[in-house]
């Protein structure tokens, strides 16, 4: 066994009291120094904070002075500080892959309460690490080239921000958007809280900039259908749906839209409140300026006649022969800015949305209050003419509710306050806000809340029980035809029934319905809610677990515009750093075949999802292509000849770790190890 020749240093971290409160750190390090001495441990120390510079210096000094050949650090998860201690080893001249980090915090002290049992487990975990590290071999990181182009999925404000940052730095971006125009949800809004900036005024210049940018290729009315490869070298297939408009010839004059005889309800941009033509631009400032013809609703595709658009198009840009086409692009990194969908308020039946005409969703209200929207900015009831005298705005619809979504949708409080302000600006109505808590944590947000309070909006603290058009009390006879909001006023301590003319449901944010498929396509993970999981929620908030795939904006969870913009820029900064390095180091975890032992049985050949395993029929041997191998190691146990081995996770390492983990009994006593 090689461990006898190795000189191993063991470093046990207190992590302040995070570990030391549950694990007897001093006893553990003393134990390791004594009991694991015959397994190569020459020094065992403990430190308040191993990750501090003084803690790292201890490791570096020991490597230099004691001639350590292996290092085991027992501290937090390797996902936290593996890099830190590998760095310390490298600085002291030790190959960084000869350092093993074992977790006694996330997997011991934080999850166990019995100090004796936790201390015993910590000893076992360290013994596993010591035996494993002895089997480690020096490795060099794999270097992969980084393709300078980037794919940004989603053309909302987060995606646009990421695309512009990267493009402005001089690198190519493919910006993919499912809708005919970029802009996302922000393009639907009238005003933005708390500054009441006009959304279009601040967004459309960014859209135009993205549309005109020489480094940005827009793929609107498109979807990503396939992603192959790995960080630095992704091959992405983008399905560009047929627009039936020749973009080269179209001038964006809008005559096709004007002449198209078919009007359909616009459930996307107008949130169902307005109509659009079948040949349409979703909104006047759309980027790109080319309309699309909505095939399934088009009379020509249905009946073979019409072609009104073609007849009137001054540049002959209408092309009914277009078909969907797949565009394949090579990119080095990906930003997912796939945004959110509004919670379907129909699911809360007692609020009456979809049944009671004068109950609106927040997105409907956004369109209504927008000067360019279906009512030209007039706040009116569903009949399109009557101004409401009383408006009730209901917070937390589908959020903070364990029946729907337990999470807070983050933006609804501020959005509701904005609605209250806008109703007051456009009408003389009495305004109620029904809230659970007001969450106004952003810059100048609480000041906006104070302003809305001073403007006279009435705040009722309580979750609305019901919105109904059924009157119950004789005193309500005067309110025939209005809506009644039943709510427990938790500050007054009583049930109230408040008559209103219009209800606005501040619906929460949900991941897009196909969020799981998107996650699968890009090989990333989602939380059970469907939001993209960050590599680290605090320290790496825009990276995903998959190298080269970043996320920004509401794809990560509900957030406001400033946060989405920052996310986009942050993802761009991360990517630009890599592009400028031109290559990046990857974990050298790869499988390889010992050709001398390979019998050419081909059992492993079908196991690789990356087609990294190549069979050489001439030599009757199999080879693993290290550029394609992702290091999962599935082929290794499949080989009946034991010809495949894996760096970083070799059989010898894992078998030794098992042996080490079992060296210590549940009560912390050393067991005689069965000779293996």
């Amino acid at each position: 066994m090689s461990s006898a020749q190795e000189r191993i240093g063991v470093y046990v971290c207190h992590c302040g009291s995070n570990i030391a409160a549950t694990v007897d750190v001093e006893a553990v390090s003393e134990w390791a120094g004594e009991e694991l001495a015959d397994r190569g441990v020459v020094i065992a120390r403990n430190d308040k904070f191993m990750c501090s510079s003084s803690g790292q210096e201890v490791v570096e000094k020991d490597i230099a002075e004691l001639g350590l050949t292996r290092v085991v650090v027992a501290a937090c998860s390797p996902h936290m500080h593996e890099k830190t201690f590998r760095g310390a080893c490298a600085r002291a001249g030790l190959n960084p892959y000869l350092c093993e980090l074992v977790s006694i915090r996330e997997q011991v002290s934080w999850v166990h309460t019995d100090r004796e049992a936790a201390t015993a487990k910590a000893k076992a975990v360290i013994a596993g690490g010591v035996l494993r590290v002895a089997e480690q071999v020096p490795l060099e990181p794999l270097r992969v080239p980084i393709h300078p182009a980037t794919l940004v999925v989603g053309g909302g404000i987060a995606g646009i921000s990421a695309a512009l940052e990267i493009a402005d730095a001089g690198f190519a971006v493919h910006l993919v958007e499912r809708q005919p125009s970029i802009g996302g949800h922000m393009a639907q809004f009238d005003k933005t809280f708390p500054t009441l900036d006009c959304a279009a005024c601040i967004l459309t210049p960014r859209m135009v900039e993205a549309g005109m940018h020489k480094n940005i290729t827009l793929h609107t009315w498109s979807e990503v259908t396939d992603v192959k490869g790995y960080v630095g070298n992704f091959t992405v297939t983008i399905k560009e749906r047929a627009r039936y408009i020749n973009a080269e010839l179209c001038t964006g004059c809008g005559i096709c839209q004007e002449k198209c005889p078919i009007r359909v309800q616009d459930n996307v941009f107008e949130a169902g409140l307005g109509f659009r033509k079948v040949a349409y631009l979703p909104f006047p400032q759309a980027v790109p300026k080319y309309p699309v013809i909505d095939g399934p609703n088009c009379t020509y595709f249905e009946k073979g006649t019409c072609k009104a658009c073609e007849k009137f198009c001054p540049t002959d840009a209408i092309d009914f022969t277009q078909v969907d086409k797949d565009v394949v692009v090579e990119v080095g990194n990906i930003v997912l800015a796939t945004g959110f969908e509004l919670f379907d308020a129909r699911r809360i039946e007692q609020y009456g949305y979809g049944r009671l005409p004068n109950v609106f969703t927040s997105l409907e209200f956004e369109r209504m209050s927008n000067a360019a929207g279906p009512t030209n900015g007039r706040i009116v009831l569903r009949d399109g003419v009557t101004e409401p005298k009383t408006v009730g705005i209901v917070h937390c619809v589908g959020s903070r509710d364990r029946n729907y979504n337990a999470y807070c949708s983050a933006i609804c409080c501020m959005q509701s306050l904005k609605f209250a302000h806008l109703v007051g600006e456009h009408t003389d109505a009495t305004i109620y806000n029904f809230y659970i808590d007001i969450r106004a944590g952003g810059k100048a947000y609480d000041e906006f809340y104070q302003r809305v309070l001073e403007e006279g909006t009435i705040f009722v603290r309580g979750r609305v029980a019901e919105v109904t058009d059924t009157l119950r009390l004789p005193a309500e006879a005067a309110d025939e035809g209005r809506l009644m909001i039943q709510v427990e006023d938790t500050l007054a301590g009583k049930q109230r029934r408040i008559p209103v003319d219009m209800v606005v449901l501040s619906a929460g944010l949900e991941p897009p319905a196909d969020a799981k498929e998107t996650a699968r396509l890009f090989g990333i993970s989602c939380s059970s809610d469907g939001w993209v999981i960050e590599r680290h929620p605090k320290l790496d908030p825009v990276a995903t677990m998959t190298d080269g795939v970043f996320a920004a904006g509401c794809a990560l969870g509900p957030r406001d515009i400033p946060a989405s913009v920052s996310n986009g820029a942050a993802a761009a900064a991360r990517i630009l750093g890599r592009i400028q390095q031109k290559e990046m180091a990857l974990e050298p975890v790869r499988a390889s075949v010992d050709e001398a032992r390979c019998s050419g049985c081909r059992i492993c050949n079908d196991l690789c999802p990356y087609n990294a395993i190549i069979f050489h029929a001439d030599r009757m041997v199999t080879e693993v292509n290290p550029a394609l191998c992702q290091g999962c190691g599935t082929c290794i146990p499949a080989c009946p000849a034991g010809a495949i081995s894996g760096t970083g996770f070799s059989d010898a390492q894992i078998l030794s770790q098992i042996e080490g983990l079992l060296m210590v009994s549940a009560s912390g006593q050393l067991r005689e190890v069965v000779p293996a």
Partner: protein
Amino acid sequence: MSATTTQAPVGAATDSAGAAFEPVMIGFTCNWCSYRAADLAGTARIKYPPNVRLIRLMCSGRLDPAFVLKAFAGGADGVMVSGCWPGECHYIEQNIKALRRFVLLRRVIEAMGIEPARLQLVWASAAEGQRFAHEVGRIVEEVRALGPLGWGRDGARPHESIAAVSTAAGPAAVPAEVTA
């Protein structure tokens, strides 16, 4: 093979202190989902029993059946295998290969006289710290109810065959049809 145990075996019904049986178990986790679920359980301070000692693999597909046999031979009372949910594997579908091996391996250990329930499979996404903790608790109790395996310790079971399988032949000991 005659293993001489000078101190209390891990799997003894009572250890030298005379305490109740505490199973010792090995848990194999994947780098992307289940190990992160364990990390999340930690970050969220969710408590679970300390009996399972984890090994991080890149993927549950890396799990060599010999690792499990080695764990049993080395004195583990139970083994937990954990990976991403089917359809959510970081390596696309390798957890499905782990599932195939798991199903066959359970039969193999049963043929060797080990209760199949000592080998358990748990899917846990990186967001499921709560589930991970809960499943560890459940499995520990199931194994505790089975009592000590004590294989390779006190001669209570015919450990020669398993020790031979897991050590002498290494990974090659597992029939090809188990893994292919």
